[in-house]
């Protein structure tokens, strides 16, 4: 077990190191670092001072060490636009993204499991068929376009929900959140549904497949023979058994929800990390771009590592396979 964790930990460190090389290579070697890292509005004197301060007059390998040493200290440069440390800027936007991702994930579970079970219990009914058709659409519709349709339908034509922004936030455990006030809820509803759509389709498929498998098991037949009500069989015996794989997959997919939040946040002007990175790319705010890329990769590696460790605890086969390899 500990061998497995140490091995995975070392792998993760190697990946982060390779990422730092890639980002460094991308920003410092492919482009002109002076152009990218120094405010284009600075005058000649400032530019020279900045070149010295950033160590751009030194050879490449020394520059890389400089970048790495600063990054390890948590210094990823200052934003040109906001003149704030890039790291702080991104972390300040993180709660908004997290809230959106968590609400979307919960939504896909809460809606997806009942719908998927319905489709699994009555696969030939009209409802069951339309749920499955809906889930195919959820997979193939580009999510940004669905977001646009939502805005057109609910904000422009019906005028019942706001088209974008986060609305007023309430303080909760020291963080600013939207979901506690009615106004905030109306702001988070559309983006969260939009972000949840893809995962919703996934959950529907998983719970449908799970239900169809479980329903033919002996313990369900036994429960029926015992004379339990159909409601109790479905809500207790079937639900419990399909819950484990579904919740595992949603946990695994949480990282990709955060990644896809970039699209949803841009469509709905949701002030999270994803919107920040797109604005920064647009305004060539390189320090923020570098910081975002390093943070998101770090976050992904942590999520992947946790998932792998969790899996190796739940399923000993994974662990054994890795030790043999």
């Amino acid at each position, binding site marked *: 077990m500990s061998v497995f964790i140490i091995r995975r930990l070392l792998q993760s460190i190697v*990946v982060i190191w390779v990422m730092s090389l*890639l*980002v460094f*290579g*991308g*920003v410092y070697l*492919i*482009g002109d670092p002076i152009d990218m890292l120094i405010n284009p509005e600075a005058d000649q004197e400032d530019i020279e001072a900045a070149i010295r301060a950033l160590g751009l007059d030194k050879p490449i390998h020394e520059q890389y060490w400089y970048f790495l040493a600063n990054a390890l200290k948590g210094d990823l440069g200052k934003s040109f636009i906001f003149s704030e440390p890039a790291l702080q800027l991104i972390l300040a936007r993180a709660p908004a993204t997290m809230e959106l991702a968590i609400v979307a994930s919960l939504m896909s579970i809460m809606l997806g499991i009942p719908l998927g079970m319905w489709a699994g219990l009555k696969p030939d009914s009209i409802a069951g068929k339309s749920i499955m058709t809906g889930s195919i659409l959820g997979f*193939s*519709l*580009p*999510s*940004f*376009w669905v977001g*646009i*349709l939502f*805005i*057109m339908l609910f*904000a*422009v034509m019906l005028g019942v929900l706001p*088209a974008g922004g986060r609305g007023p936030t309430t303080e909760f455990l020291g963080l600013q959140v939207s979901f506690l006030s009615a106004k905030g809820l109306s702001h988070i509803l559309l983006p969260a549904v939009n972000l949840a759509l893809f995962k919703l389709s996934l959950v529907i498929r998983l719970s449908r497949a799970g239900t169809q498998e479980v329903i033919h098991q002996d313990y369900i037949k036994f429960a029926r023979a015992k004379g339990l009500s159909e409601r109790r069989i479905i809500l207790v015996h079937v639900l419990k058994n399909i819950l484990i794989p579904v919740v595992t997959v949603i946990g695994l997919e949480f*990282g*990709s929800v955060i*990644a*896809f939040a*970039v*699209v949803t946040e*841009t*469509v709905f002007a949701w002030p999270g990390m994803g919107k920040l*990175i*797109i604005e920064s*790319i*647009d305004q060539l705010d390189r320090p923020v*771009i570098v910081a*975002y*890329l390093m943070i*998101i*990769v770090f976050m*992904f590696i942590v999520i*992947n590592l946790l998932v792998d460790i969790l899996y190796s605890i739940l399923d000993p086969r994974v662990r054994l396979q890795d030790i043999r*390899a």
Partner: protein
Amino acid sequence: MSVAMNEGSAPGAAAVRDETPLRRFISDFCESKIAIAGVLGVLLIAIIAIFAPWLSPTNPYDLATVDIMDSRLSPGKQMMSGVTAFLGTDGMGRDMLSAMFYGLRISLGVGVASGFVALCIGVCVGLAAAYFGGRVDMLIMRVVDLQLSFPAILIALILLATLGKGVDKIVIALIVVQWAYFARTVRATAMVERHKEYIEAATCLALSHRRIVFRHLLPNCLPPLIVVGTVQVASAIALEATLSFLGIGLPVTEPSLGLLISNGFEYMLSGKYWISIYPGLALLFTIVSINLVGDRLRDVLNPRLQR
């Protein structure tokens, strides 16, 4: 493909004498009406994309004919030049229908080109992993697994954030995103095929590695590759549209469907729906058509479902 079809040939109920594998494949494929609709859709898209300059009513990028007075006309209105804009015009006064024809051309071109290059790279890498095994296999599959543990959009975002905008950049990003899927598919199939007798026979004949891999192993790995290739082209088109919508994909001089949707987005709130909705419908039609064909190919080419 014909080699692969011979492999799992089952005694069909309707045993026609002169039935070739290709003919059987086509008749199997056509059993599903919805798949035929998909093929027709794909053909329509391909024709529009190839012949866009001749099919579109106006040339939306000829500055001499585009009139700013025509901007934001609603669908069905007549433009200054006398041509009817069936789907309206955009903010610059370009006919939406023509812009969509040209946009489809760019979207499809980017999707197919990146899919094809990714297929070539993925096939070579995957075959190498399966054929040589051992260290090579382990190293390649580590990289593939690692890459597939990140969502495609994130990898594309990382690449485009460091490389910048441009047609070449987005094609590179799409190739990097896709090659791993091909490599994994071809490796999985080749691992099974490698131990079959015909490969052993070829080895006994002392054929060169290259000949065995490309003339014997590769043709037998084709069916799953065709399926993955179809699905990947659809997802590449969707990803390109998403990235272009975010403003980090194609430059404004190469307006794909995604960019057209993005341009229309700013007029959305004032109720000018057509600038954004119609390119979106075209995108949806494209993706769904390709996916329908892909789904059917998966069913027909899957030996386990062989009737």
